[in-house]
Each structure stands twice: as C-alpha cells, then as structure tokens.
C-alpha cells in the first residue's frame, strides 16, 4: 500500500512536464502532417491531402538546393574551426603557469560566448561596415574599403570566422579542463627522460586530448544541418542570398514571411529528418567509440 502511494506521487510529479512536452513538442511533430497537405488556416490539420507534391515542388526549386549546399558548407567550416582553434588555444594557455594570468585570458576570450547573436550581429555589422573600424584601417593602409557583408564571396567566411570568434573561448575552457585532468606523473617521467616542453605537448598532451577532441567532433556531427540561424538572419541581406541563405532562413522566409505554411513545413520536415538521423548516429558513435552517454 505504502509503495503504491509513493509510486503514484512520482507519476503525479511527472504530469506537468509530460503535458508541456506533449503540447509543445509532440503536437508540432504531428503538425508536420501539413507537409503532405495544402494547408488552409480555416481547416487546420484537416486541410486537403496532396501526398508528396510539396516535396516534389520544393526539390525542383533551384533556391532550395542552393540553401542545402550553403548550409553544409558554412556548418562544415564552423565545426572544423570550432575544434582546431580551441584546441590550439588550450595548448597555449596550458603553458602559462600563473593561475591568475591564465584565468584573466580565459575570462576575456570567453566574453562573446555570453552575448546574444542579436547584440553580436549589431557589433559585427558595424565593425565590418564600409565605415567600420576594420575598413578604417584598410583605408589607412591605402586600400579600398571592402563591403564584407554584402559581397557574396566573403559573406560565408565572415559568418564562419565570427562564429568561431564567439565560441572558441568556451571550447578552450572545455579542452583546458581535459588537459588539467592528465596525470602529472606522465610529465614527470618525460622530464626524467629529458623530454622538452614541446615534446611533452606533442607526445603526452595531444594524444591524451585526442578522445575529447574525437568526442566533440562526433557530437558536432549532429549540427551540420544547423549553419546558425540566429547569426545569419541578423546579418544577411538579399544581395548575399546566393552564398548565405541557409535552410533555416529559407524556412523562415517561406513559412512566416510569405505564409506558405505547407512549403515551410516541408523544408522543415526534410531538415528535421536528416538532423534526426545525424544526431542519433553521433550519439551512437559517441557511445561506441568514446564511451560517452548523453542519457
């Protein structure tokens, strides 16, 4: 009897959470049904069934194929830089012995991580604008100002570099934590054997950091469909759509601005499915190769 009562209370506690998730996660999941319909706001989910017509239509749009390519391109280099740069800086910071100086550097490079993409987009747009500070320096050197954010060739790289800028401080702290966990006896043994600092880094720190690097790479596989809506939406303009328009910004313009709900949902569903496969795969691989379980 007691045991039953206790169980009952646990189930009761779960109720609000289940309700919230059911309404705001499962109903929208069911709402993806409109990808197979011609959505009519008056009829809602009971709109006319059109099968795969929306998918056929969307895959024939040259703009859609373009957004997939842009998404993968931008996301790939963000992930790559987002691993290499923090590893590099964690190794550099690790060489600094004064805790206070080390922590000051950490704090400074950590700053952009805490600010929203809206604020950072405002700051970056200003810095990269034609009369922004970077172009002021370029002019002083005698070159013509470069409109970074309205040049299709440069736009994706502006996104990649500024994204790495925002996130590398955070990544550095993660890798630094992993380095701190390395057994100091290994370094002592290396010193006895006459190993230099550089050799210690190359033959002890890096190999022991490898599992963490691999884990972070595997986990980032799940985000190759996310090229960074918050960032790009706040900095792009029609002039750079050809290289800067990504799946999420495309869904927004299609679904919210043009109110083509079925088309927006179709693209969203495509992205959702691919992401789901990639995220599951990355969790599976993280468990298999790095012994890391998310849940």
């Amino acid at each position, binding site marked *: 009897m007691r045991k039953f*009562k*206790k*169980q009952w*209370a*646990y*189930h009761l*506690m*779960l109720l*609000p*959470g*289940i309700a919230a*998730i059911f309404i*705001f996660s499962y109903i*929208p*999941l*069911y*709402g*993806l049904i*409109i990808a197979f319909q011609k959505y009519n706001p008056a009829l*809602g989910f009971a709109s006319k069934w059109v099968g795969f017509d929306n998918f056929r239509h969307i895959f024939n749009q040259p703009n859609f194929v373009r957004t997939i390519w842009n998404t993968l391109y931008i996301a790939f280099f963000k992930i790559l830089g987002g691993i290499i740069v923090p590893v590099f*800086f964690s190794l*550099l*910071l690790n*060489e600094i012995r004064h805790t206070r100086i080390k922590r000051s550097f950490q704090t*400074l*490079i*950590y*700053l952009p991580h*805490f*600010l*929203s993409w*809206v*604020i950072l*987009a*405002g*700051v970056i747009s200003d*810095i990269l604008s034609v*009369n*922004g500070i970077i*172009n*002021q320096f370029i*002019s002083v050197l005698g070159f013509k100002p470069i409109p970074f954010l309205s040049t299709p060739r440069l736009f994706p790289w502006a996104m990649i570099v500024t994204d790495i800028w925002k996130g590398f401080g955070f990544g550095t*702290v*993660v890798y630094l*934590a992993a380095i701190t966990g390395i057994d100091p006896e290994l370094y002592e043994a290396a010193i006895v054997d006459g190993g*230099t600092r550089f050799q210690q880094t190359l033959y002890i720190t890096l190999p022991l950091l490898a599992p963490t690097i691999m884990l972070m790479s595997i986990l980032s596989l799940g985000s190759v469909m996310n090229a960074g*809506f*918050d960032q790009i939406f*706040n900095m792009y303009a029609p002039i750079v759509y050809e290289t800067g328009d990504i799946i*999420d910004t495309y*869904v927004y313009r299609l*679904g*919210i601005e043009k109110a083509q709900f079925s088309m927006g949902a179709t693209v*969203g569903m495509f*992205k*959702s*499915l691919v*992401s*789901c496969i990639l*995220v599951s795969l990355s969790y599976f691989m993280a468990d298999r190769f790095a012994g890391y379980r998310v849940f």
Partner: protein
Amino acid sequence: MKKSTASRTIFMIINYILLIATSLICLLPFVNLLAISFSDSAASTAGKVTFWPVNFTTKSYEFIITGGAFFPALWVSVKRVLLGVFVNMVLMVLTAYPLSKTKAQLRGRNIYMIFFVITMLIGGGLIPTYLLVVRLGLLDSIWALILPGALPVYNMIILMNFMRTLPVELEEAAMIDGAGPFTVLVRVILPLLTPALATVGLFCVVGHWNEWFSGLIYMQKTIHYPLQTYLQSLLKNMDVIMRLATTDYIKLLSLMSARTGRAAQLFLAALPMMLVYPYLQKYFTTGLVLGSVKG
C-alpha cells in the same frame, strides 16, 4: 639545458603576444562600440572613431531615455526572465526527481525517459510550432515566450544526473520518518541540490535573457517585444525609430546618427551580461562537466 631555456623564453614571449592579441580581438569590438556610442553624428559617419569617443556627446544615451522603446523592452525581458525561469525550474525539478529513480522505484521509468529524449532528436520545427501558438491564442501574450520552452529537456537531464549522485540513505531515513515523496523532494533533495539548481537556473536565465526570435514571430505589437527582439528591430530600423521619436529629425540627425544610437543601445544591453559573466563562468564549467556524468 641552457639552450632549452632560451628557446623556452622565446616561445613564452610569442605565446604571450598571441594570447594578448587574441584577448584584444575579443575585447576591442566592444571598446569600439562604446566609443561610437559617445561620439557625435559627424565623426561616426566619417568613420573617424576607433577606441576613444570623437567629439564626446551623451546625446545617444539621452535619446534612449526620451525616444525608442529600450526601457519598456527591458521591463518585458525582466518579467520574461523571472516568470520563464520560475516555470523552467518547477518543471525541471518535478520531472527530474521521479526520473532519477530506478526502474523498480518508478514503474515505466524508461518509457517516460524515451518520451522526453525523443524530443531532443526530432521536433516539428518552426512552422507547426508557430501555427500551434497562433491556434492557442498566445500571440502578443508573454506566455508565448515561456510555454513552448517550459521544460528544457537537456537541462532537466543534467539535473537528473546530479540527483543520482546524492546518497540514498538520507532519503530513506526521511521516508522511514514518514515523509512522503513531495516532502522528501522539498525538504531533503532540494537543499542538497543548491549548486546544481544554480547551474541549470543560470543556463535558463541566460537562455531567456538572450532569446529574441520568439519575440519577433509571436509579438505583433512592438510594445510587447523583449529587449533582444527590440534590439533586433534596431539593426534594421533605427532610422525609422528616430524619425518617429522627434518632430525635428534633421536637428536630431546632426547630434546623433542611427549608428551612434544603435551602438549606445547595444552597449547598454550587453552591459549586464558583461558585468556578471566573469562570476558565472565557474557554474557554466561545472554544468558542462556534470552534464556528461553517465546516467
């Protein structure tokens, strides 16, 4: 040995130069922003401002008090953070506690777990969620900013992992004394969990404070915009806001520009986070480490 110390010194000099340069790259954009916000219209338009105000003026800050909607938006954000984080915490604690039990203690525990974890892998995406919020009549209500993310599943799992590290003896002792599950949760578990609650609570505070997109799509009247959404509208429409705020637009333009006005508001909005983040850092790293505690 001597040679090794010489090369070490050279390395350390290069290392410090690199780290100082990188820290400056993270810091100087905000110094530039601050300098622009205190400069006058002519200097900013001519691109003369670097890291010190040119023709110092506080006109842009005076504008924030008299024109635009900075403070009303700030108030919306404060309400949103307080209400949103309260809802988050209640739901996370109530959900995480039963789920921290074993299969034997909570029948169906794994099924519940799958129910929550699936939403981390796949979701309906933007369009169905938007249509749902519209259907629920939440447009222009602060609840549209809070309910769709009422239970952050990832943070809930972090909290659950924390709970699993607590010794079971305390809980059992309280149960023997006749305390029910709710009493145990409030009197025994929560006091032991203060550091963990602080960590996930901070994640939620930063999340709500920085979020801007739901404000953009769910708030039709700009007066209901939270701060970040208001800032987002500034990035594109600062000149419109200035035009509407004054009867003598030409005179206003001679004192400040859209650029200086934007800079002032971006800086003011970034300031609270800049002041507190050095103290939040350690919670974020603990959260990160504990998030990976195996379940």
